[in-house]
């Protein structure tokens, strides 16, 4: 069987950043397996700008951002197999995949980095009543049709959900000559970035209808109209508020789900909240030697954070294969402190930390469950508050982070938990 120090599942922004980072840490026997025919993942269809402000201090389009990583991987000579679909990752890190050139093949990996990304929640997951005609697309599918295939999915559009792809596609469809009647959002707040609401809706006069949902799809063969209604506090449509929007297209941007079928097969423990793997300070999953990063771990708002996180995962994977068996065994028994998300914080990544193994500084990422104004993000080590930072606005659409210092943890032996929470004062 083919042997590799590291096999990376997915050649999108996460997989590439992980590969480059691992290589730069000195582990060069790496193979990236990518199911698409080119590297870059979903960035290839994100032709709008706004990528890379943190990483490169400039505004790039999605393909431009991806290309920087693709070029770097090529410079380093990292092997990337495209058109290759991974079918199975075993708990002992045998990665089985299929492609046209090799057929079905397996690789024994020293460590595995899961970087499969996420998928869009489909219409069916929402139980929107009505017919099931042509013309109902997830925003990402429409984005692919328009930006990659050069095709037009419709002319008169209603968008349900104000996730970032939905907002971006509101603008994109408008620029392509379609009319976007409205973006309806079930929640009283948008699930997307503020800047996208301004640049993609406000600038084009597209109304954002908060606390609204689609209650019915009309049209047996092709969408003819959708009904949009206001919802009450328990998110139920309010009778009498329905309005019919004649249209030929309904785009959905109603949530992203990490694609963890392979992780599940490998026996990786998944979080019911993120639906991604439960990981430690090294982004290692519950299966030793298997790491995760990017949207397969938890859905990110900005690719810059994906790249940072993936670089950390790649470095951890390299460290894992460079270490001795004894060291790996010893790591398993090391004391861990759980990171607890409380009071508005939905989850944290990682969800446990070993002060002995962590780097000097560790970024803990999280999302909040509602829109909060003027709250403090607090970190408690045991009972003691060690960080208290005021944020003017916190919203579910934006990822937040706190940084933990190893010195702080090591100077407080015996703490039983690390709490990240929101506080009013």
């Amino acid at each position: 069987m083919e042997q590799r120090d590291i096999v990376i599942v997915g050649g999108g922004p996460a997989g590439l950043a992980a590969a480059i980072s691992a290589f730069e840490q000195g582990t060069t026997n790496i193979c990236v397996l990518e199911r698409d025919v080119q590297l870059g993942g979903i960035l290839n269809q994100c032709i709008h700008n706004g990528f890379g402000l943190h990483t490169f201090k400039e505004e790039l389009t999605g393909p431009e951002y991806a290309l920087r990583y693709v070029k770097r991987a090529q410079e380093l000579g990292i092997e990337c197999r495209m058109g290759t679909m991974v079918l199975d990752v075993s708990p002992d890190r045998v990665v089985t995949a299929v492609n046209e050139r090799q057929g079905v093949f397996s690789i024994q990996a020293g460590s595995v980095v899961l970087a499969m990304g996420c998928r869009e929640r489909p219409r069916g997951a929402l139980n929107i009543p009505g017919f099931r005609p042509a013309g109902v697309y997830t925003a990402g599918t429409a984005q692919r049709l328009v930006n990659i295939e050069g095709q037009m999915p419709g002319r008169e559009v209603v968008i349900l959900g104000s996730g970032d792809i939905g907002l971006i596609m509101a603008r994109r469809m408008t620029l392509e000559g379609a009319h976007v009647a409205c973006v309806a959002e079930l929640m009283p707040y948008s699930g997307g970035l503020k800047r996208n609401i301004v640049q993609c809706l406000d600038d084009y006069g597209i109304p954002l209808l908060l606390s609204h949902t689609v209650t019915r799809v009309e049209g047996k063969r092709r969408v003819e109209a959708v009904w949009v209604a206001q919802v009450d506090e328990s998110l139920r449509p309010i009778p009498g508020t329905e309005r019919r929007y004649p249209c030929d297209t309904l785009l959905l941007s109603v949530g992203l789900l990490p694609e963890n079928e392979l992780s599940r097969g490998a026996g990786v423990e998944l979080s019911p909240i993120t639906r991604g793997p439960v990981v430690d300070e090294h982004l290692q999953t519950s299966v030793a030697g298997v790491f995760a990063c990017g949207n397969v771990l938890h859905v990110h708002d900005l690719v810059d954070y994906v790249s940072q996180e993936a670089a950390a995962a790649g470095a951890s994977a390299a460290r894992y294969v460079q270490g001795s068996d004894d060291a790996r065994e010893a790591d398993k028994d090391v004391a861990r402190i759980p990171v607890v998300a409380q009071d508005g914080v939905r989850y944290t990544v990682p969800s446990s930390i070993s002060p002995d193994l962590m780097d000097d500084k560790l970024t803990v990422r999280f999302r909040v469950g509602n829109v909060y104004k003027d709250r403090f993000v607090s970190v408690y080590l045991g009972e003691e508050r060690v960080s208290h930072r005021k944020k003017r606005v916190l919203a579910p659409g934006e990822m937040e982070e706190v940084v933990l210092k190893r010195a702080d943890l090591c100077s407080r032996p015996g703490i039983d938990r690390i709490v990240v929470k929101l506080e009013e004062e």
Partner: protein
Amino acid sequence: MEAAYDVVVIGAGVSGCAVARELSRYDARVCVVEREEDVCCGTSKANSAIVHAGFDAQTGSLMAKLNVEGNELMWELAEDLDFKVRRCGSLVVCTDEQSRPGLDDLLARGKANGVPDLRIIERDELKEMEPNISDAAVCALWAPSAGIVDVFGLNIALAENAAQNGVEFVFNAEVSDVARQGDGTWLVKTSVRDLRTRCVVNAAGVYSDVIHNMVSDDKIQIIPRKGEYMLLDTTAGSHVSHTIFMLPTKMGKGILVSPTAHGNLLVGPTASDVEDPESTDTTVEGLAEVASKCALTVKDVPLREVITSFAGLRAHQPGHEFIIGEVEGAPGFVDCAAIESPGLTSCPAIGRMVADIVSSLLGLVDKPDGSWVAKRKGFVTLEGEPLDVWANLAKRDKAYGNVICRCRHVTEAQIVDAIHRPLGARSLDGVKRRVTAGMGRCQGGFCSPKVMEILERELGMEPEDVTKSGPGSELLVQEGGE
């Protein structure tokens, strides 16, 4: 004018295709006309996909007889035609002691109907068989002969095999009139062309009343009965391992929870009579009913794993009985009407029964020895199969190495096969029903553009002409304006 056909079958659902396949044994000119672009587009595509044991129907009814016979025939048919069935057995669950007599009645009726191996099991055994059964469950009627079937696979297999054996199919052909001619033949007018035939079989599902009433003064009435369902991801597919029915009450048969032949979990259906035979839309109330009632028999149904919901229409008639036979006053016109549940289970027996009627009416003779092909090779499935099966296929044909549908592991080779079969797929739904591309948890989000491209390439279509399910369901609009 001489009739071009011996038999025209109206409707390419499971009934029409089962009849056509049985008729293909004879030396006869048979044509199936279908208003949709493909087989399996009406009642046949949206139902519970259960091979019923046969204890529901009234003893002595045609439904009871054909159900039990159909169940017996289904397994051999599946071997011959290579579609998916699984004999998982069914349980009718009784959730209060007062209702137990109802279960005893079902058992007695089942025995009278000739259903094999029926027995009532008590809570402990039930709990062992179905760990997720409701805490309220008292006992259940266990019917090991029941099963689940891939309805698309069954319908397509019947049609393909019929086509292999010379049956002609005309799609997108809506029947506007059926009239007896002076010479005793029939003229079937369709939106594609008119067909002259010696015999007509009315297998028009929810429209079988309309077709029947074109030729008979003894009118029948179909009241479409809507059933709404939710389909859950394969991750929920083993939540139960048998088909779980509620004990029928005066409120109806209730909501079932069942594994499917594709490995999903199905919950539904509702039952509400509707006027419009086109109203295959789901409703707020219907889906809410499915979501709440499934909990009556099964605990913790993971409804958040739902990937799609759909509604089907049963061809219900007030007498609740199949209408099969030559119509009085219309010699050569044979009804295969009002085929509602257990119509799917019964279809192998319905096919035989109707073909017998037609062949004796027309005096048909068998095809010459050896010229009728009984077997047909099914579509390749890779999902869930041992990987060496896939490896061997990929060695022979590299298109098996190109995964198009990532959720259900469908390769380019399988999609190309689906398109180039006899009666091949012409649309996204056609591909989906044949080889499951787009049937998975992302519901075609990733693979639709790729499948569209393959359809364009293989069929020489323009992108704008690719449809979801036939004319009117085009997926794209012309670039640059109306």
